[in-house]
């Protein structure tokens, strides 16, 4: 149980979340103001809250507080929280001018009186802040209940955002799909949590780690615990759009407004990966062994073999199905949805490699991914065709002629998503694949590299169609969105994809905080006695030479 003595440091660590909650309340009130100017300032206040949260998260984080809070990854928040807040600022921009467009237009022209029940800009941004705050809370989770509540705080607002973001029936359908399937995934990981509790007798994450370590040193983690872990992983796969829980992604991303899709592609994913890192951290990447029928222990490095196998298969299938799926799309949003699936596959490699190198690389990749995927979604949000979102390759053919900046940003983000140097995507992949290679995951790296090559097929189409293809009849009627902010966001992210790599070294160093201090407070040291060697089918790949 959490004692009073740990309350103080923990509150200090939660300061950024509190700032975001305050911001969310403020934004939802301002959003109901009768003054159109005040309502227009909502995104600004949202950005102020996020920047303040980023600032506070850096300022209030101290080593003492983090270690007193008894977290599995005590320093993870000091990298993840600023990253969430700063990418969050970028995610606010594409929605400006799109939310409440019809209602605000009617009010401005006098066709309709202001009605507090019909404007939802405040709600939208408040939910966005709540969701980001939830993702931040995950970094401080010290027990499974907290983990569960924080995950729900990430997800519930996003269901509403999908429904609110766009007035069409498609968005409603997407929201309903997303909600029901999300509820299914919640049920799954909650059941997993229950099984873990059954196996270890505690909800405290540090306690679970100690219990698992004790089991691993003895007869191995028991069936209940392993099943619990696997169920929880599968449930969380929904958040990160990984196989077998990825089916919803193309439908939901396509149905949601494009700025909401951008949000879905980043924030729930960060939340899912933080939760997965914490859960897998309880089992740990060391101290496991195969126990043969004659009782001989063969120790190996890596996750418990069943867990490793599940993640391994899921990672391979996720990147492959994501890329193959994207190959077949005619809709840009669906292409980007599948691309988001495949990137999750790459990032799962980081989970398999584990702390410290794999987890660091994973969070560095998330940052890179956030920048480049936001660039592509924002570029789409910067355009429209007869009041509708731009969503087919025909719409962007020859875009260079009339919308050169947007066309270039789309191309840059696509090239970066392939992972071509010197773009930010290259450095993300480099760090991730290098960590995997170093830990002996050669097969996984090879599969990921082949997948990257395959992905060039559709990403380069996204780069070539706007730049090289002749304008089509459809693309001739594409105009800029009413607000310039989505285009500005696209330019910032696109230019960022080129410039951020200049600081690659420093960012990589910063990302090392993600796993700094992991395993420091472990009570039971892993028993490394007995013959070492390759384990089973999947852990053989985990064994260092």
């Amino acid at each position, binding site marked *: 149980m959490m004692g009073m003595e740990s309350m103080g440091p923990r509150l200090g660590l939660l300061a950024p979340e509190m700032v975001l909650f305050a911001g969310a309340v403020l934004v939802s009130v301002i959003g109901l103001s009768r003054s159109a100017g005040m309502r227009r300032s909502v995104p600004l206040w949202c950005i102020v809250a996020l920047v303040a949260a980023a600032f506070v998260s850096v300022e209030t984080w101290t080593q003492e507080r983090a270690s007193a809070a008894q977290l599995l990854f005590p320093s993870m928040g000091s990298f993840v929280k600023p990253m969430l807040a700063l990418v969050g600022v970028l995610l606010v921009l594409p929605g400006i001018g799109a939310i409440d467009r019809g209602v605000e237009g009617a009010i401005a022209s006098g066709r309709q009186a202001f009605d507090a029940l019909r404007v939802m800009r405040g709600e939208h941004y408040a939910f966005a802040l709540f969701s980001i705050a939830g993702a931040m809370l995950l970094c401080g989770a010290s027990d499974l209940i907290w983990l569960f509540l924080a995950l729900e705080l990430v997800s519930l607002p996003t269901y509403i955002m999908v429904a609110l973001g766009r007035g069409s029936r498609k968005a409603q359908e997407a929201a*309903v*799909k997303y909600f*029901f*399937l999300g509820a*299914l*995934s919640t049920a*799954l990981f909650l059941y997993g949590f229950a099984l873990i509790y059954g196996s270890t007798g505690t909800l405290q994450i540090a306690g679970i780690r100690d219990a698992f370590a004790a*089991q*691993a040193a003895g*007869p*191995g*983690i*028991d*069936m209940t615990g*392993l*099943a619990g872990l*696997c*169920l929880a992983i*599968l449930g969380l796969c*929904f958040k990160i759009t990984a*196989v*077998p*829980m990825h*089916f*919803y992604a193309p*439908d939901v991303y396509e149905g949601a407004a494009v700025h909401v899709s951008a949000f879905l592609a980043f924030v729930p994913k960060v939340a899912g990966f933080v939760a997965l890192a914490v859960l897998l951290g309880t089992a740990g990447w060391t101290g*496991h*062994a*195969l*126990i*043969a*029928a004659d009782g001989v222990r063969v120790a190996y490095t890596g996750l*418990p*073999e*069943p867990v490793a*196998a*599940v993640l391994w*298969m899921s990672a391979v299938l996720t990147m492959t199905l994501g890329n*193959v799926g994207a*190959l*077949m*799309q*005619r809709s840009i949003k669906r292409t980007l949805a599948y691309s988001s699936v495949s990137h999750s596959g790459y990032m799962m490699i980081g989970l398999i490699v584990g702390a410290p*190198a794999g987890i660091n690389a994973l969070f560095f990749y998330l940052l890179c991914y956030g920048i480049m995927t936001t660039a592509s979604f924002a570029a789409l949000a910067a355009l429209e065709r007869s009041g509708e979102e731009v969503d087919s390759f025909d719409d962007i053919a020859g875009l260079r002629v009339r919308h050169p900046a947007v066309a270039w940003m789309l191309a840059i983000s696509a090239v970066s998503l392939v992972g071509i140097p010197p773009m930010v995507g290259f450095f993300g992949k*480099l*760090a991730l694949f*290098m*960590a995997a*290679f*170093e830990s002996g995951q050669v097969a996984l790296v090879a599969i990921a590299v082949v997948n990257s090559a395959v992905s060039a097929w559709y990403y380069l189409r996204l780069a070539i169609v706007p730049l090289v293809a002749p304008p089509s009849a459809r693309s001739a009627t594409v105009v800029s969105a009413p607000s310039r902010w989505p285009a500005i966001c696209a330019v910032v992210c696109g230019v960022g994809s080129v410039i951020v*790599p*200049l600081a*690659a*070294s*420093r960012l*990589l160093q910063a990302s090392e905080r993600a796993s700094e201090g992991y395993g420091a407070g472990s009570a039971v040291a892993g028993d490394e006695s007995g013959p070492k060697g390759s*384990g*089973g089918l999947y*852990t053989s790949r985990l064994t260092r*030479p």
Partner: protein
Amino acid sequence: MTLAQSIPTATVSESMSWVGLALLFPLVSAVLCALMAAFRFRGKGPALVTAIALGASFAVILRAYMTYSGTPVVIPIFDWIDFSWSGGGTFKSFAANMSLYVDRLTLFWMLFVTGLGTLITVYASEYMESDRGAGYCRFFFGISIFLASMTALVMSDNLLMLYLGWEGVGLASYLLIGYYYTRPSAVAAAKKAFIVNRIGDLGLALGTFLIWSNYGTVQYDTLFAALSSGGWSGADWDKSLIPYLLMLGAFGKSAQIPLYVWLPDAMEGPTPVSALIHAATMVTAGVYHIARMYPLFELHPDALATVAWIGGGTALLAATIGMAQYDMKRVFAYSTISQLGYMFLGLGVGSTFAAAYHTFTHAFFKALLFLTAGAVMHGFGGQLDIRKLSGLLKVPGFRIVGWMMLVGCLWLSALPYSAAFFSKDEIILAAFINGDRAIPALGWIALGTAALTAYYTFRVWFRVWLGPVRYEPDPVEMAHMAAAHGADHGHGDHGHDAASHGAHGHSASHGTGHGHGDSHDFHPHAPRLAINGVLVILGIGAVLAGLPNYLVMAGRESENWVQWMLAGSSAYQGAGVPGGDHSHTILGMDAHRAMLLLGGCATFGGIAVAAWLHLFSRASADRLRSALLANPLTRWIPLGAERKWLVDEFYHWVLRLPLWIGGQIMSFADRHVLDGALVNGFGKLPLALGRLFRPLYGGPLQGYAVTMAGGVALVLAWVVWMWTRGAH
């Protein structure tokens, strides 16, 4: 093999970071030029900004030179890439930071790169003035980008940043060759330059990869340390591949066999570009790279011999082609290829000093030659055909241009006691007598090439500047300019295909009706201050380039300045003057005396033949050509040389056509098999599957839920199975 001497290790100096300004200034100027283009600026601002930025850059380098302490310095600008990891049991790292490596070789190269860059920018401010507006901004943007990239290339402290600069200069070259992008020939030339360079760049990239995988670093400092200690056993095939791959990159950038074909076509660019990028600076990047990597080449004698043979062969081949071209700029382009061949010959026979010195003198006189050719074009309606220009020295306003071109021609012909004579002499001398690196056969080839050089150089000068006054504007160019600028005075750069002029052009230019004033309302446009001033400065520079040697001869200095500059750098291995002790002999004479005699004979012999055929008795040149053409046994000589020995055609049939056919097949496969059958087919697959399974689920939502649940069930079953097999 190990290195003969160890290389001084560099010290890290944060306090010298102001040297980074040399890189920053051209970048800022590029941004300003782009902004001026965006704001539709129509004045001479871009030229002014670029000239000031490059001048400031030159000043920074000059100050760095003044304050240089004598040991190499690494100047960190900021950290870019710095990875380290342990793999396969050993610790590895990949560091390529934005840092500058400053030693005398760097400073030497940067001094003439920034200095000439500034001068040529001033020249271009007048030369390009008819394009004021977007084109003017675009031009100076290209020049700024070029200078920034060239600075990165020369000053970087690691091979990755060098590669970045290498690609940057390639891009600038592409953009500027294609400056007149409405002209198909210019677009084709730009593409050709870019694609041919890609082949070389692939070699450079692979070489860099191999250097990293063998020596674990791409930073010069640590690489040189590894080379001094590690050496090379001869058994490591991948190590012995490195110099050949680097060489390929150098041959691409510096237009050597087999990758030289892009440079003559690159003359489609505006003349200041030809002078700056395609004569004086960018094309010497290959020479710089090999000089910089000399400690590595040092370990591979066979690679150095290859460099020497390629260089000597290119020098000869290009000279023979240059003898038969009618386009002034093309002649100079082939002479550039030929002179670059000399530089590689110098590197290959172990004298980096001779190569660097020739680079230095060549930069001046070749820039001078191109700029004088540009002034002629600028003044005579884009005319470059030496058969249609004659006696221009008598045209008012062109006297300075003519005399300056004479200086350039004399220097290119290696007039004894001129700067270029000293540098070329050093190369040939090294080829004869430089210890076990010497390849005397190449010395004879280089001497013969020197005679050919003198001939083709003065063929141009005698034809264009002496004899009866006769000129006409280029009709194609005039039509182009009239269309583009409303009959404004025309200039620009029009590449001629010499072969197409072979049949009719020849007789026409010697017809009777082509006298002065042939094209009625055409008036030459004499150059003004910016052009004449720069020409005179470059002429003085070309003369002064011999100063290092004059000072030695006068006993004021103990060694050549360029040699002193190289001696303190990583390229010092080959910096010693061969035969300095007068113990070597050629044909029984003291080596230096023999070179003076042989070189003088080659130069004056070439000039004399040119004077006879192209000044005193021009008819005999035609007679000689007709005689050669009439004899079936000698027909191939003039025809082959005029058609550039059919190398372009050879590449077309052997490389381009098969690649084109392959490309068509790929494109067909892409459209009909991949895009058609696979993508569209697969695209229909989910729909078909959906239709198949819909009755089962009753809707997509339930369908997804059932699929997810099925996946979870499968996974769980699998986990249980694994657990029962003993995996925990």
